[in-house]
Structure formats: structure tokens, C-alpha cells
């Protein structure tokens, strides 16, 4: 095709008549053969099992009691966890729910606050800043079971770990943090692993602030704190919300780190909902109750994500 005719074709291809033609052509030919294999596999491996879980959650089904027939028992499994008989002694479930929300909430809060501070610091242009940024990103890619055992043996251990040795050096008596402050240990490790992601997203936001805005800020004599709190923070608020939402999705399902550090203990003090589901299946062998807990976990995730998503959409509408 010559250059001129190609140009004509390109020109014609954008004309309304052509668009109409393309659309009517497309009406006959759809592209489902590209889409359906993925939809099929994902549905079989995620949606179908989830629907089955919902069905299981309404059954009385205990793997260690094969003599009892599987039978429908309505919402009994849910009531087992949710029913409050005495308001002074809440059932164990509420403790687990609170721990899940507490661990996730504190981690996200610390990640946003410290992540913002560190992103401001890493936004400076010094020699070798990329090396520093790369080092800070490292922990995000460490598998949670490895980071759990590494921290537990080389840092938190009261005799051999850095914590134990350093506190003896300064004359403190080291305590077994993993047993005494299980939630604190889990939160510290989660923050260590997830803050790099927050820094990365917030740094992208800070670097997206136009330079002339920063210049005019300096000319107007805005001091550092005002500049950060009143101008930079509002400008990257959407980055913050997106980081929080993604962090929430991944943190709420975390399981490996809890298993290797505290194993849910002492007692059920550091159980989270996914860990409780695991224990119901493999320790109590109660498929029905585990199903009910799994459904509650999904409901909680969807509820929290939905709340956050709505606030993001509302804010974006406000700005645009």
C-alpha cells in the first residue's frame, strides 16, 4: 500500500461511517473464545468452591464423627459462633474477630503514617537514593514463613537473638516477646513486610506533584510542616487510600506468618479468622463450622473493601 492510500485508509477508518461499519461487523463476531477459558478456570477453582463452602456452612458435618449423617441444620453453625448468651462473657468468636480487625487496622495505620514519613524522606534527591529505595523495598518480596522464622530466631530469641543480646548489654531482662506480646510481634512483622509497598505507592504520588507547585510553595514562604500537611498530603490522599485498600485485601487473608511465629497462641490470643478456619478444619475436623467461619471472613473482607472503595470513589468525584 502506498503512503497516500494508507493515509486515506487511516483517515477513512476514523470517519463515522467506518465506525458504524466496524460496529455492525463486530456485532456478528464476538470475542468470547479469548475470554471464556480464563473465566472457566477461575470459576471452577474459586467461585464453585466458594458456593460449596456456603452450602457446607449450613450442614452438620464433622469429619471425626462419620457415624453422624451429614444433615442440613440451617444457621446452627453461624449461631454457634455468633450467639451471645451472656453479655459479660462474649463467645470466643468475638475475640478472634477483634484480633483480626485489630491486627489489620493497626498494621494499616502504622504503614500509612510511617510509610508517608519515609516516602517524604526518600523523595529527597541525594546520591545513591535509588540504592536506598531498593533496599527498603526488599522485605515486601520475602515469603512470610521465612520472615517469620528469621525474625523469631535471629532477632526475638531471648538468648541468641539480637533483641536478647542487646537488652542484656543495656542491662534489661529480655522477655519472650512472642509469648507475651503475640499481637505486637505479628503487627511489627506485618508492618515490616507491607510498609515498602506503601512507600512505593506514596513515593509515586509525591513524585507526581508538579514541580511548579513546589516552586510556588517555596516562593509563597510556606514552611515545611504546612507544605507537607496542607499541600502534599491532600494531593496524595488517593494514593494512600489505594495502598490501604490493597493492603487490607492481602493482610486480612494472611496465615503463614501467624502459624510460624505464635501459632495462634497463647491459647487463642493471636488467632485471626483465616487461622480459626484452618483450626476448625484440621484440628476440630468440623467442616460445617469451618465453612461458616470462612463465609464470615469473606463477608468481613467484602464489607471493609466496599467501605473503603466507596470513600475513594466519593473523593475522586469531589476532585473531578
Amino acid at each position: 500500500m502506498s503512503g497516500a492510500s494508507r493515509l486515506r485508509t487511516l483517515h477513512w477508518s476514523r470517519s463515522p461511517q467506518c465506525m458504524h461499519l466496524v460496529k455492525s461487523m463486530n456485532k456478528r463476531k464476538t470475542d468470547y473464545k479469548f475470554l471464556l477459558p480464563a473465566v472457566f478456570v477461575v470459576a471452577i477453582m474459586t467461585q464453585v468452591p466458594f458456593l460449596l463452602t456456603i452450602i457446607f456452612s449450613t450442614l452438620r458435618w464433622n469429619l471425626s464423627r462419620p457415624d453422624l449423617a451429614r444433615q442440613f441444620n440451617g444457621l446452627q453453625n453461624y449461631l454457634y459462633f455468633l450467639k451471645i448468651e451472656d453479655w459479660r462473657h462474649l463467645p470466643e468468636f468475638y475475640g478472634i474477630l477483634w484480633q483480626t480487625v485489630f491486627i489489620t487496622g493497626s498494621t494499616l495505620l502504622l504503614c500509612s503514617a510511617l510509610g508517608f514519613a519515609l516516602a517524604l524522606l526518600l523523595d529527597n534527591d541525594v546520591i545513591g537514593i535509588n540504592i536506598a529505595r531498593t533496599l527498603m523495598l526488599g522485605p515486601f518480596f520475602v515469603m512470610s514463613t521465612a520472615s517469620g522464622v528469621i525474625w523469631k530466631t535471629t532477632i526475638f530469641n531471648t538468648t541468641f537473638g539480637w533483641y536478647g543480646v542487646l537488652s542484656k548489654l543495656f542491662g534489661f531482662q529480655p522477655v519472650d516477646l512472642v509469648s507475651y506480646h503475640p499481637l505486637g510481634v505479628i503487627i511489627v512483622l506485618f508492618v515490616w513486610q507491607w510498609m515498602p509497598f506503601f512507600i512505593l505507592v506514596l513515593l509515586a504520588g509525591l513524585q507526581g506533584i508538579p514541580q511548579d507547585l513546589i516552586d510556588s510553595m517555596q516562593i509563597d514562604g510556606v514552611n515545611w510542616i504546612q507544605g507537607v500537611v496542607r499541600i502534599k498530603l491532600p494531593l496524595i490522599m488517593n494514593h494512600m487510600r489505594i495502598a490501604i485498600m490493597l493492603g487490607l485485601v492481602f493482610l486480612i487473608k494472611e496465615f503463614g506468618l501467624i502459624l510460624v511465629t505464635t501459632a495462634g497462641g497463647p491459647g487463642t490470643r493471636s488467632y485471626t479468622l483465616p487461622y480459626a478456619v484452618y483450626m476448625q478444619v484440621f484440628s476440630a475436623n468440623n467442616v460445617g463450622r469451618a465453612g461458616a467461619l470462612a463465609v464470615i471472613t469473606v463477608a468481613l473482607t467484602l464489607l471493609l473493601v466496599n467501605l473503603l472503595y466507596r470513600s475513594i470513589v466519593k473523593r475522586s468525584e469531589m476532585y473531578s
Partner: protein
Amino acid sequence: MENRTIEQVVRRARIRHFTKKLLLSLLIYGIAIFYFFPILYMFLSGFKTEQQAVLPKIFFTPTLETFKKVLSDPTMYQYLRNSLFQVIIGTTVSLVLGVPASFVLVFGTLKKPESNNKYFLWFITTILLPPVAVLIPLFTWYQKFNLINTPYGLLMAYVGFHTPIVVWMVHSFFSDLPAEIFDAAEIDGCTRLQQLTRIALPIVRTGIISAALLVAVFIWNEFFLGFNLTGNPTATLPVYMSRFREQQGMFVAQLSASSTIAVLPAIVLGWMTQKALVKGLTLGAVKG
């Protein structure tokens, strides 16, 4: 004041600026090294003997003994092989399923114009689904069909969970392309498949590579499904790492060497994706 020349003033200001920068850099390096320290110390301890590793020390004479010992252990090889199998096959299959689907969701025609968006949202909701929600039925199926002792059971679960992530990340890269080039290609008689392989893929190559690397890191690090849906012959590296949880403070060198092998590939791959990570993970809502 009067006997100060302009040069002196300028020099002073320069020195002040320089010291400020220097202090700032030292603070940044200090924090970065402190933050990275647990990983760094793990790398170092892998080169110690068990006796050297008992007490925390940074300076020592390095040895390859421990690495040799860990790598000569046949079970370690088995875990490594299983992990590599899951990562390579799992990532490839997820890409083969996810990339065309994502392309069609951006540029393709479905029954109704709004269907594209609906399918895309459906993929996103499956990302929100925590793996505990599917554990029980998968576990009972796998027991029944003896999939626990073959790697294919876990592989199917990984493909199911990571295809939506591919769709999600690649979607934002495809969305940057102008629709006109595909309209033009269609008029020139290019089929949908050719549009994808000849036009779209070469342009978004880097985006797809980083999505692939990130999915590889996710599969390499995945623990929950790997732990519950495998037996001894099929378990992956994260499961192997979790077995160290009961050995309180014992075998620090061995633990460090094994975790270095488990952690290093993911960190290196992750660092390679750095640039595209922000954009891919935030749905293109945030430019990297």
C-alpha cells in the same frame, strides 16, 4: 559583617547546603540499612558455621560449609524443584489464560458494550476472595481424587487464583493503547489474535514481563494453599521454611542458608519489577 566578601558568603552557604545534604544522606542510608538488616543478617549467617552463628556477630570468616550442607540435602532439592515447577508452569498458564482475556476486555466486542466492564469487575472480586473460602471443598476434592500427592492439584489452584491478577495488572497496560490502531488493523484484515500477538504484545512487552515476574513472586511465596493442598512429596519451599518454626534458636546457620535460597530469587525478581509494580498493582490508578 563589612569585611566579608561575596565569595565568603557564597562559600558558607555552599558548605551549609553540603553538610545538610550529607546529614540527610547519612540518615537515609542509616534507615535503609536498618530496615534491610534482618535480610542482610540472614544472608551473612548463611556463610557461618553453626558454632559461629550462635551469637549475633557481623564480622567473621565466611565459609561455604553450611550452603554445601543444605544443598546436599535431597529433601531441599525436592522442595526447590516443586517450587520451580509451580512457578514456571503456574505463571505461564496464568499468562496464557489471562493476557488474551484482558486484551479482549479492553478492546474486544462482547454481547453488550457493558459486558466488558462486568467481566472485569468479576475478575477483581475473585482477587478479593480469601483462599480460606475455597479451602474446604478443594481439600475434600483433592483427597478424593488423590491430587494431594501430585503437583497438578496445587497448580490448578494457583492458576485459578493468579489468572485474575494477570487480567487485573495487564488491563491497565492495555488501556494505555489507543483503540484506533486496532480499528485500523481490523480494517486491514487483521484477526483478533493477530492484533494481540503482532501489535499489542510487542508494545506492552515490558508491562507483561513485569506482571509475569510479580505473579512468579506471588506463587513462589504462596503458603496457605501450598501448605494445605500438598503432601510430603509435593510441598513447596514456603512449607519447608515453616518447618523451622519449632526449632527454637537451633541451627541458625542452616536456617539462614535455606532461607537465603528461598528468599533471594523472589527479592531479585521483585527488584526487577520495581518500575511497573506501582502501576500494575494499583490498577493504573497510580502512575509509577
